């Protein structure tokens, strides 16, 4: 049973290959079947593997390369952490794929969409299953590429292309830090095997390595200061947003830090930095979400904020709580995106929440599922999954000091504030637009399944740790948030830190200026120099060719005079 592990990322990859190489001959239902089926099969395999899981094990397919001591493999390693990850990724991914079959119906790039989605899932599974950091990096970059392709999926609009490139390049900045971290580890411990590197890590300056890895995690997980790409990433189709935000991509950073926990534990300074970044992003994301008009952007800021919460937990050393929250977040955030997608689909791709209203009657299923998602996000006690994971994070924050705890509490308040504000604006009040409800079982079923998960997901026992829920101040605060939200239904705007503008001025424009300046390749002067000298010499030499006999004779005489003078007085 365990030997099937390689099929977990292998099946989506196969799906990608089939769709991209032979897909032209497939009918549209067949494309959907291949695309969804491969992820579904992968989810089944993952479940089978999980059922037979006793203890961590590795499966090495082949040795990737060997240079001296350095010998990374193409191999997988399954332990409690990666088990949780693959189950969430495959199942949530499967539901999103199923939803996409209906959501993307009629799009010209149907096959391309499923091919890239499959590759995306495969890359993410590689990331979480890799037994060494280099192979992990492969998945890491693969996820980046697929996010680029999916955000820019509707490539005809240059704005989408810009958002896609922004996502790729900003995350690549983080990835480069990650890569340098890998170089550092190779130089210091000589291996990238995660287990071995962690055991040997004591002997090195862990702070440098941890800080560099953190750079990568910050980029992928859209934390301050590399969070700017995430809101723009909403340019892609809604299922893509669901996939990026819920199960894959942005959680990669959380996974990476949890995976290299031993390294961070050796570097308290860096770990505190993780917590600070998480706390800052938690608050900034929450405030940012309040100021948005686009329903998907609200969710994007929400994701940023929730990942910030996970980072906070990681920084406080409570990585099991972070992973627990990752799981519940995957359920309810995917649910929120899918529900939002079904709303916009019924409203002719209207994204502005202030042009919606009173939809609870016309779109009951969307309303119900969105409400469940929102409740779970804000952590309704007992009945939602979000409650359990949030409480466990708050609990560990309390242990580390009241300061961290109160920051997290503010985050909780902001969360229920912005999400119920959206609920009230979108589903209550008077109707403002015509609604053409799209009813499709493929749209509804995944939403319902996710809604169930968002409700009961907190009871799922996960192997990384056991969490005792208890009703605390947080529940009260989050209820209060809902009440306040009712009074905040008007559009809000407040000045925030303009990261985009800052980066535009600090990096983008100088780079463009530099590129313009050197675009004509000033190094060509190297060749102009000798060329100019040769041309000048030619001009001078040809000027002496006057054709005048006497001139030539004078030249000869002059030469004779000089030569004689040299002979005489040298």
């Amino acid at each position: 049973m365990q030997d099937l592990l390689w099929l977990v990322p292998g099946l989506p990859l196969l799906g990608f290959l089939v769709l991209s190489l032979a897909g032209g001959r497939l009918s549209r239902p067949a494309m959907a079947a291949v695309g969804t089926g491969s992820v579904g099969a992968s989810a089944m395999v993952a479940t089978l593997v999980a059922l037979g899981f006793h203890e961590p094990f590795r499966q090495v397919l082949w040795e990737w390369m060997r240079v001296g001591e350095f010998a990374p493999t193409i191999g997988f390693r399954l332990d409690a952490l990666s088990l949780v990850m693959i189950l969430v990724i495959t199942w949530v991914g499967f539901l999103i794929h199923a939803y996409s079959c209906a959501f993307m119906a009629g799009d010209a790039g149907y096959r391309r969409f499923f091919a890239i989605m499959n590759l995306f899932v495969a890359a993410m599974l590689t990331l979480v299953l890799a037994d060494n950091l280099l192979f992990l990096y492969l998945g890491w970059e693969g996820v980046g590429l697929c996010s680029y392709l999916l955000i820019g999926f509707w490539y005809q609009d240059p704005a989408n292309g810009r958002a896609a490139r922004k996502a790729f390049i900003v995350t690549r900045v983080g990835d480069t830090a990650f890569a340098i971290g890998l170089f550092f580890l190779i130089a210091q411990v000589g291996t990238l095997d995660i287990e071995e590197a962690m055991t040997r890590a004591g002997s090195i300056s862990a702070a440098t390595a941890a800080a560099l890895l953190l750079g990568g995690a910050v980029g992928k997980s859209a934390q301050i200061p590399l969070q700017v790409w995430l809101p723009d990433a909403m340019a892609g189709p809604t299922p893509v947003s669901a996939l990026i935000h819920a199960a894959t991509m942005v959680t990669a950073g959380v996974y990476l830090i949890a995976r290299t926990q031993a390294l961070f534990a050796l570097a308290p300074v860096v770990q505190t930095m993780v917590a600070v970044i998480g706390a800052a992003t938690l608050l900034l994301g929450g405030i940012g979400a309040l100021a948005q008009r686009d329903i998907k952007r609200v969710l994007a800021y929400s994701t940023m904020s929730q990942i910030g919460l996970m980072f906070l937990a990681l920084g406080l050393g409570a990585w099991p709580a972070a992973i627990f929250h990752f799981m519940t977040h995957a359920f309810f955030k995917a649910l929120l995106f899918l529900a939002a997608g079904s709303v916009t689909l019924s409203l002719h791709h209207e994204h502005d929440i202030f042009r919606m209203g009173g939809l609870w009657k016309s779109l009951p299923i969307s309303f119900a599922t969105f409400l469940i998602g929102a409740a779970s996000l804000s952590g309704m006690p007992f009945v939602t999954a979000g409650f359990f994971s949030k409480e466990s994070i708050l609990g560990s924050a309390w242990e580390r000091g009241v300061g961290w705890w109160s920051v997290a509490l503010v985050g909780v308040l902001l969360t229920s504030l912005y999400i119920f504000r959206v609920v009230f604006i979108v589903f209550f009040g008077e109707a403002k637009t015509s609604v053409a409800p799209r009813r499709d079982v493929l749209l509804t079923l995944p939403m319902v399944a996710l809604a169930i998960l968002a409700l009961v997901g907190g009871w799922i026992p996960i192997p990384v740790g056991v969490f005792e829920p208890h009703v605390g101040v947080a529940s009260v605060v989050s209820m209060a948030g809902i009440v306040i939200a009712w009074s905040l239904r008007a559009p809000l705007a407040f000045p925030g830190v303009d990261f985009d503008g800052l980066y535009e001025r600090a990096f983008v424009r100088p780079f463009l200026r530099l590129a313009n300046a050197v675009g004509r390749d000033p190094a060509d002067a190297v060749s102009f120099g000798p060329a100019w000298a040769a041309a000048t010499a030619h001009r001078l030499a040809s000027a002496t060719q006057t054709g005048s006999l006497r001139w030539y004779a004078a030249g000869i005489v002059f030469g004779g005079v000089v030569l004689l003078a040299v002979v005489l007085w040298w």
Partner: protein
Amino acid sequence: MVVILGALLLGGLLAWVAERWGEVWPRGVALMALAIAAASSLVPSWRGEVAWPWIPRLGVGFHLAVDGLSLLLVWLALFLGFVSVVVSWREIKERVGLFHFNLLWVLAGVIGVFLAADLMLFYLFWELMLIPMAFLILVWGYGDRVRSALKFFIFTQASGLAMLVSIVALAVFHARTTGRLSFDLMELQGTPLSQGAARWVMFGFVAAFAVKLPAVPVHTWLPDAHTDAPTAGSVVLAGLLLKTGAYGLLRFVVPLFPQAAAEAAPILMGVGVAGILYGAVVAFAQTDFKRLVAYTSVAHMGFVLLGIFALNPMARQGAVLQMIAHGISTPALFIIAGALQARLHTRDLREMGGLWAVAPRMGAVALFFIVATLGLPGLGNFVAEFLTLAGTFQMRAWMAAVAAAGVVGAAIYALSLMQRSFHGPHREGLVMSDLSVREVVVLGVMMAVLVGLGLVPQPVLDLAGGAHVGP
């Protein structure tokens, strides 16, 4: 080994003659010659040595030898030879015979360079590949081809002369100590040189190889030559001629002058890093598809230079792998540029956009090679760049860190290339046919090779690892 060279040289002459029987004949003859050469390169027994006296009075011998590095590059050369013949099937219509004559002679020169174990013989082949290449640009090129061909010729010729001086000087120094004049590589190794002499003699070699590589700031012939060359010319230029520079550094500079090379290493690594960053920035500013790709070559060969002079086994392996991977990915981009030019009659990116809508297959293939260029893991370029930088990091950490910033630059130019050509709004009237079967086959094989290099690079690393390079 002689069979390979002989097949290519004779095949070239025959292809020239065969022109009178019809247009297909030269192509067939060229393929035949390549097939013979390829077949004989696969026979293990040829991997011995050929050492015949040639000009005994001067100690010049016809000495060919092969090791893992040479073998890899010879295979690359033959592979790209096939590719060149196939991609020029439709593009070249005039003087077909002469074209294939030049093509095969360039290949023979390149392969000779990779095999020569005698410095005079090496120089002979070095010059042999130069002239037909200049003709390829001059006769079948586009745009300002005369100027480009001349620029290419002058740059490489002038630097080649510096190398000739160094070769002779080295032999003379050797003769002074041992009393025997010889140009044989094995004999010249370990020639005791004073520090100053070693520096100057090495400088001559480095000058020639740096121009060919090309290293900043003597790279400026490359964009012009690439832009104006026919597709097959660009393929050979990017895939092979640049590699001869790197090969020379690996084979001659480092083993012959270990001391001086170690001294000069920081400077040359700095040049490599400068090339990586400079190439990335300048590439971004280009509007000509081929020119942009040409500047990416500058950046990629910067990695090679960095890897060679990190003087570390890991970095050197990376550099060798980069030579191979770049030898596949960049020619592929030139083939796509050529395909676009054949269909749209322009290479100007400002006139393109949204081509995915009309040619999705070509778009996907282009995407593949573009992400290979930006070093996506799983493809050969990534393994190469990673090993190079990881090896460099062990020697000079900050240089590797700065060079890694070039990877971000690569993402910027590569994605902007994709955006401006295949993504973006599709223009009315910008219609073209998708890739033909012939093109798909060629590019598909190249894709497979890159994926193979990215996931199973070990055979290549083993071959290169056993090579006789380094002190």
